């Protein structure tokens, strides 16, 4: 895990940077930056995303911004970093009113934000991404040497000629941090930076952030719902709930205290639930898979009725390829997929669905729901046998499912009119009642804690009736909590953890970085 402040040897010397960038940036770095937000309001339609938020942020500190999904923390950070204008309220930087519009202007004022999905250009090389947005006076050569120098200082590994599309999220974050620093940012905002990166990358990232705050007096704002990270890293936290600022406190604090601040109540940690396992239902027989990003060689796995198998790994390490190969969306190079003695390897997606598989993809409106169709039309798509559609009948079923799954929406509403949580509920409502195996990509992506628990309650109900579940998640907590067995992927290699109750988030964090041998010891 991350080293805390005490034993840290900062890898960075302030003068090294000055020589690599320019002297005037150095001058701006001398004093800590003080930011004050005054009465910030922001509305989206009927939602009051930020409601009268006033806040002082002091330089040289790492500040955690906490709140569940939809609490308004991302909105606030986007306002601070110029991505969205506030409806009203003002931002003071070092006592001066900052009237910037747009992220570029915010960066010029010293505030930069690292988005959860870093805003780089995938088709550009690392060097081009670094260069793009720098002052016109910077030459390609200077950019190359700056990039190398600063990367080296932080222990980042960035090959300038690799396209950004081919590096990991962790590396893309590193690239964006280096870029923002070179632009003279003194306040760095990070939105959920620890989702989808390995333990090693996290250590490097946290070391860098601590160095920036402690040694250079920078303000670091860490937006996260991972309380462990906040506890490990932050000097203070601010907490938002339903658009309002509900708490500010200095660290250290315990997890329970933070949870109380976030939710206004205690939430018992989810218990691991061991189900009873039945017969083997899905057999993967030395499967070899090749997709655009990764190759997985000879993976064999027997999945039993009622079993939950969690897949961990960085984006594109092989877990998505495996899930999609099971349902026929990714080509299988060798081996077999057998469902209850029936070889499905050469069968189409639709035939596999009919045989008893069910699949749901990570991106709701990209892969799963059809924007422009109503809830009723979605339901009608699920009944594939009839030629003519019995609209009154389908409407009845739709209304019943809306009630049963507690969806906030009407049968005739188009799906894109629903909120993300309600879209997820409708996706669940569309899944067949009792499939043999459910294969779910990130089943709780973008959901708040309550909705996520509700989804898992539904899944575990089905599992109790014998449905096996294979799922993945960037949230290692979720994998540890719900899995019976875990497969960890790294660049197509994999490692099976036979008993998930022995696994911890720390162990998984190291495994997804590829340290299979070390973990085996």
């Amino acid at each position: 895990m991350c080293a805390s402040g005490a034993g840290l040897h900062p890898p960075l010397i302030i003068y090294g940077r000055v020589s690599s960038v320019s002297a005037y940036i150095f001058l701006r770095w001398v004093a800590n930056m003080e930011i004050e937000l005054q009465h910030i309001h922001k509305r989206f339609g009927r939602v009051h995303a930020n409601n009268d938020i006033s806040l002082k942020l002091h330089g040289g500190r790492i500040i955690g911004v906490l709140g569940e999904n939809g609490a308004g923390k991302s909105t606030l950070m986007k306002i601070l970093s110029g991505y969205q204008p506030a409806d009203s309220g003002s931002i003071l930087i070092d006592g001066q009113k900052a009237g910037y519009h747009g992220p570029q202007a915010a960066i010029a004022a010293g505030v930069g934000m690292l988005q959860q999905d870093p805003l780089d250009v995938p088709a550009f090389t690392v060097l081009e991404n670094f260069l793009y947005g720098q002052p016109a006076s910077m030459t390609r050569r200077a950019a190359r040497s700056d990039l190398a120098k600063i990367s080296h200082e932080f222990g980042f590994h960035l090959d300038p000629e690799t396209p950004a599309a081919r590096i990991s999220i962790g590396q893309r974050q590193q690239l964006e941090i280096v870029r923002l620093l070179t632009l003279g940012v003194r306040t760095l905002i990070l939105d959920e930076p620890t989702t989808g990166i390995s333990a090693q990358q996290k250590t490097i990232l946290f070391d860098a952030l601590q160095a920036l705050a402690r040694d250079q007096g920078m303000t670091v704002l860490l937006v996260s719902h991972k309380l462990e990270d906040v506890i490990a890293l932050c000097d203070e936290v601010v907490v938002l709930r339903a658009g309002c600022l509900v708490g500010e406190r200095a660290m250290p604090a315990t997890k329970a205290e933070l949870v109380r601040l976030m939710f206004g109540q205690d939430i018992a940690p989810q218990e691991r639930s061991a189900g009873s396992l039945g017969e083997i239902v899905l057999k993967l027989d030395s499967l070899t898979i090749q997709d655009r990003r990764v190759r997985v060689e000879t993976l064999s796995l027997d999945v039993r009725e009622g079993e939950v198998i969690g897949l961990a790994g960085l984006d594109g390490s092989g877990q998505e390829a495996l899930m999609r190969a099971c349902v026929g969306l990714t080509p299988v190079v060798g081996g077999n997929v057998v469902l209850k003695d029936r070889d499905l390897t050469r069968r189409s997606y639709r035939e596999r669905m009919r045989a008893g598989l069910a699949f749901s993809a990570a991106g709701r409106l990209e892969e799963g729901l059809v924007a422009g169709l109503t809830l009723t039309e979605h339901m009608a798509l699920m009944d594939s046998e009839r030629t003519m559609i019995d609209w009154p009948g389908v409407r009845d079923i739709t209304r019943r499912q809306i009630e049963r799954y507690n969806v906030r929406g009407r049968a005739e509403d188009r799906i894109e009119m629903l909120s993300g949580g309600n879209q997820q509920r409708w996706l669940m409502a569309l899944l067949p009642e009792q499939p043999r195996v459910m294969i779910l990509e990130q089943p709780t992506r973008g959901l708040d804690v309550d909705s996520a628990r509700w989804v898992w309650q539904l899944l575990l109900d089905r599992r109790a009736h014998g449905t096996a579940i294979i799922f993945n998640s960037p949230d290692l907590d979720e994998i540890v909590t719900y899995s019976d067995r875990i497969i960890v992927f790294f660049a197509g290699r994999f490692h099976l953890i036979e008993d998930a109750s022995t696994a911890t988030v720390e162990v998984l964090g190291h495994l997804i970085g590829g340290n299979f041998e070390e973990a085996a010891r």
Partner: protein
Amino acid sequence: MTDNRTPLRILLLIAPIVLSLAITAILVLAVGKNPLEVMTAIWEGAFRNSNAVAGVVNFWIPLTFACLGLVITFTAGLWNIGVEGQMMLGAVFASWAARTLTLPSPVLLPLEIVLAMLGGAFWGFLVGFLRVRLGVNEIFGGVALNALANVLVIYLISGPWQPPEGGSAQSTPPFPAESLLPEISSEFPVSLLALFLIVIIVAAVFLALRGTRWGLNLKATGKNPRSALLLGVPTTQSALSAFVICGAIAGIGGAYRVLFTFDSLRPLPSGGIGFLALLVVLVVANRALLAPIVGFVFAAILAGSTRLRVVLQLDQSLAEVLQGFVVLLVLMANGLRGRILGGPGAESSIQPEPQAQPTVTTAAEATTHE
């Protein structure tokens, strides 16, 4: 909310038509003619007597067939520019039957129509196959297959099917009388059979899109093929079937041209009607039942404009210019309405805006397909 905006809505409905008439008038003035005379000529060309009206209907019938086919491909989110070629292949297949088979009319005519549908469906299938299996965007596949269809027609006229007196590349010899569609009367020369077929196909297309699983599959495929696939829609089959069915319906339109309008196969037998149908369908968006009505107005302008050359020595492309401006300005006015009045879904900036136009794939998708 609606009271003070209604006049604006009406204005945005009328403005494109008035404006395109004005632009056309300026063009007419620029070539030294009187716009009013032009309007009169077109009006007379279309409606001066029952024969002229029949001329309009004879444009309208193939146009409507093409429109009905295109409603299907637009629903599936596909840009079937290849509809011209599909009409031409319908014409070629019908011509083959008309030239070759000696059968009594009641047997021959249905056979010709069926063959025309097969021909159009075949050309539609090619566009679809190139699109869904080989990744060639349907716009380019369609453009190329349109040209190839006309190459085929010219080859037939100047080669195997040329008149005995020699290939003038003007037309094949006239088809025998029993192979041609009968007209209602000599005062109103229009095919009743074709009108009857249009009624049937309007009803069939409407019902298929509204009430069948196939229609819903098309809609889902058109709006989001990836999601549709995961929801169990056979998306490639859906897209392919849309091309095939559209081609079959457009093929009837092509057959009508050779079996009624011309009584022989001529170069470019579709005569640009397929392109005109694309314009019509762009205007009516996905309101299938409006297509025949808007189509009639367009057909009247086009049929009426044939008199321009006779009366005013003006190129009849003027009518196409007028129609082009109407469609362009209607689309722009749609956009303006959305901008001023706030289109559906504009109240919230978070939600994606539903598409007012049929979902279309861009030219660039030629290299990417599912």
